[in-house]
């Protein structure tokens, strides 16, 4: 009984460390899209670990915490994905280190097909 509580507290500590790392990525990353990636992935894992550790401490809270974990796991990637899509739509500038932008390639391919030119001739 005592051991599982200490294991749950250590899992909660690991989750809060992941939350700090996500915010540190939010400060250090050079670009909007990398900031979205760091903030979302690390924050989702950190929140899930925090709630699961608290569920190990209080075993009778586990049902409501599982519902909360499923809710975070469903909604958080959707909201960040919609935010990244609209930021790409209003042409937020990317970093200089970015090499591949497949959504932009697809849009230029669509417009060049509308102009009846082959995009591979330009290469």
């Amino acid at each position, binding site marked *: 009984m005592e051991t599982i509580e200490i294991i749950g507290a250590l899992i909660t*500590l690991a989750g809060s460390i992941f939350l*700090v790392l996500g*915010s540190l990525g*939010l400060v250090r990353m050079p670009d909007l899209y990398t900031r979205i990636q760091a903030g979302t992935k690390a924050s989702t894992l950190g*929140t899930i670990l925090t*709630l699961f550790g*608290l569920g190990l401490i209080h075993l009778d*809270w586990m049902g409501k915490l599982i519902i909360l974990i499923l809710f975070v796991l469903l909604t958080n990637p959707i909201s960040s994905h919609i*935010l990244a899509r609209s930021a790409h739509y*209003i042409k937020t500038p990317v970093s200089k280190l970015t090499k591949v932008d497949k959504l932009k390639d697809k849009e230029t391919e669509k417009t060049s097909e509308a102009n009846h030119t082959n995009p591979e001739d330009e290469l």
Partner: protein
Amino acid sequence: MINTILTIATVLIFISFILSGYRFFKGPDTANRTVTFDVMTISSIGLIALIAHFANRIIYLDIAIVYGLLSFMAVIIIAKYLEKELF
């Protein structure tokens, strides 16, 4: 023992809030600040769960559920506003 570890976890979540606030003041765009709002919301869900442990009342977890739902809707509305497709 357990309360000490969970107090350290609470302090780390406050450090996460302060780092997100730095990006909120420095961010050059509205979209960057929206990312900050999202991260602060997700961190606050963990903070509410920790406060529920410290007060030892299960009813506090309902507020985390309500908060997650409504901030998800708020982030989607802000993204649609930036895209100029709101209503």
